[in-house]
Every structure is written in C-alpha cells, then in structure tokens.
C-alpha cells in the first residue's frame, strides 16, 4: 500500500539507513518533502512529487546552450544553477539554443559542475518535465520508454534532470502522453493505461 507523506510527518523510530528527503531528529525519522513513502528493507526514503533537480555525479543530463563567452558556453539544465562548458572540450562551435547531452563528471564545493562525454544532439524538440517524474517516464526496465518509442515511432532521450529530447513522427500524441504520465505519476498501472491510450490514437 503506497502512502503520501507531507513535510514533518513522522516515519519511524527504528534504526534505518536514511535515503533521500528524510531527516533525523532525536532518533526519529521524519519526511522533509511532500512525496510517496518508500520503506523497503533497511533503508527509508521519500520520493518527492515536485522539486528542482540537484546534480549527482554520473547522471546523464540534457542541457541547452543559453549564452556564449570568448572561452566557452553557459548551459542551462533545469536546476538552480547553470554550468560553464569550456570550448576546449568541443571540436566545433555551438549556437545558442543547441541541445546537448552530457555526463556530470564532478561537483565542486561551490556547487558548480564539470561535464564530460559531451555530445551534440541532432535536430529534435525539447520537452520540459520535472526530474521527479523521470523514473515514471522510463518505467521498470525501460517499459514505459519502449511503449512510447514503439507506438509513436519516435527517438527519445530522457535526461536525469527532467528534460527530454525527442524526434517523433507524431509529436502531438507523444507530448500528450508525456503530459498524462506527469499528471498521473503517483498512480499505479500507468504503463498499461498509456499503452491503451496510444493504441487508440496511433496512425
């Protein structure tokens, strides 16, 4: 049985590994966000239902060039901070608005991030979602992603930051499916419903 908790809700007073979005006070564990309680095995955590992306080393993110300076580019990636990409990492010039995907190599003490494996994405569109919806957009063993790709004949790349690059034959249908997943992300049996929806409108 899944349960939604609000900030400050008491979760447990047993010794547990603390996962994300929980805090410990006087030996008791409390939730720190509005989210779904995930109490599996020896760790306890809360899956947030909204929020900004906090960079984690190793994440693959989709980012967009927002401005250029003489030695590099400023990239936006749906977080509370921007990142700087030096031109020495790239073999060709970029335009403002170009979409990239990259891996987070390192996070400095002041919160700025370093990227590696930077790749320029081909022509496509950007869908803006939230990082907390990414697990539902991908599904267990890529189940949701495969359903979306098959039924709308698209190429999709989901960044861990919640931005999605796609190139589709049916962009309107795909965007509608994304919207459905986002607004119903707390409900169960989502992949099956999306599959039925797409089969209904598929050309």
């Amino acid at each position, binding site marked *: 049985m*899944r349960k*939604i908790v*609000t*900030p*400050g*809700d*008491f979760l447990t007073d047993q010794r547990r590994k603390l996962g994300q*979005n929980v*805090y410990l006070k006087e030996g008791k564990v*409390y939730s*720190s*966000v*509005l989210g779904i309680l995930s109490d599996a095995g020896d760790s306890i955590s809360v899956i*947030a*239902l*909204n*929020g*900004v992306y*906090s960079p984690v080393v190793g994440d693959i993110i989709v980012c967009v060039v927002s401005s250029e300076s003489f030695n590099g580019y400023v990239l936006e990636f749906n977080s*509370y*901070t*921007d990142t700087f990409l030096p031109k020495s990492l790239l073999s060709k010039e970029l335009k403002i608005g170009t979409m990239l995907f990259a891996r987070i190599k390192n996070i400095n003490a*002041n*919160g700025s991030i370093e990227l590696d494996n930077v790749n320029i994405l081909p022509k496509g569109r950007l869908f803006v979602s939230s990082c*907390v919806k990414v697990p539902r957009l991908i599904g267990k063993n890529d189940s949701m992603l495969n359903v979306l790709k098959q039924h709308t004949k698209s190429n999709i790349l989901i960044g861990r930051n919640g931005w999605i690059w796609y190139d589709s034959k049916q962009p309107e249908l795909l965007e*509608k499916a994304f919207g*459905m997943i986002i607004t*119903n992300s*707390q*409900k*169960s*049996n*989502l992949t099956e*419903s999306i599959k039925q*929806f797409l089969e209904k409108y598929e050309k």
Partner: protein
Amino acid sequence: MSGENIRGDGRKNNELRPISIKLGVVKSADGSCYLEWGKNTVLATVHGPRPIFPKHMADSEKAVVNYRYRMASFSVPERKSPVPAKRDKEISLVSGFALESSIYTEKFPNTVIDVDTIIFSSNAGTRAAALTAATLACADAGLPMKGLISAVAAGRANGDIILDLTKDEEDADDAVDTACAVLMPQKEIVLLQMDGFVEKEDWKKMISAAMSGAEKIYELQKKVLLDKYPLEGEINE
C-alpha cells in the same frame, strides 16, 4: 477561555473562520496557493530556488529567502497606496525569518527562493493567512522542509479571550491581538507579535488558544496537500 460565548459573527470563542485552500493555481510559478480565510483572500507563489541577482546578495552557504507581503490597493475599505509602507516591509522581514526557519536552505547555495504573498481582501489576521498560504506554496514547490508553518491570531476583545479575531473585534476598546506562527508538528513558535496591553494570565490563555488553533490549521493544511495527489482513480487524458 470558555468555548460557549457566541461572537458577533456567530462563532464560538475558540472557533476559526471558515478556510478554503487551492493549490497549484499559478502555472508559471514552481508552487502556488490561493487561500480564503473568512473575508481574507491571499495568493502565495514560490519561484525557485533560482540564481540570485544582483550577485553580491548571494550567500555561498545557503539560499536567500525573499519573502514579500503586499496588500493590494483595493484590499481595504479606503484605497491603500501600492507603495510598500513601513508595515509591509516589517511584516515581510519577520515572516521571511519565520518561513526560512522551516526550509532547508543550505541545500541550495548561491540561490534565492522568492516567496510573494498578495492580500486581495483584508479583514484582520492577514499576516497569519499569508504565512499559512506561503508554507503550502513551498511544500507544493517541493522544497525540503522541517515541517509546515501554521499561523493564527489570538487575542482579547470585550473581556473575552478569543481565537482568530475579525476587524470589528480588533477595533474593540480593550483589544489585544497576538499573531502567532507555529512550526508543526514540532510545535515551535517561529513568529510572535502583539499589539496592546495584557495581564500575564490572559497572555498564557491567548498562547494556548493560538496553539490549539494552529493544530486545527495544520490538519487542514495536511489534508489539502494529500488531496492534490489522489493515489486511486481514473487515468484521464
């Protein structure tokens, strides 16, 4: 405090005015809340955490909480100048401190969290209404928080200790008005302001009245947050 006496608007001494809350009303904001509390109406929006400008305002260890309390010029019977007065600035400052104490700001260094609360209609107790709405907007935006802030006013009018004063009661001859914001469920007082003179015994009664009011508001706030995400139900297009 006896709960039996009936007040001017038909409420008991320890009864709140009717409250109705809607979340997510402003799509362009990260989190928002519209609250109606008796004749008070408040809209609270949260933007951020986002990069701070000018850059010298940034704190490299935590996010800056920029709380704005503003009354619309049509919110009071006589037109109020839209220029922020001393009262607006003071309430913004102290409410900002109260809200900041509930948010884990150290997770977002060099950023700002903009919290705007606008009073559309005012009938006493607006700073409590604004804080109650602002904390819900923060939770709606997914900010990591220690708990929710439940704010309410308690006071004395015509010799009775009462909860949640209206403007008429605030204008009584012996009126005392205490705005009290409580971090729930820890029950820590984060904002406490008072107008008027009061005896120690009455003061204790007022605080316990405010605490019981805050608990009722906290239950309501939790219900509103849980109702936004129904676990069951049809997956609609």
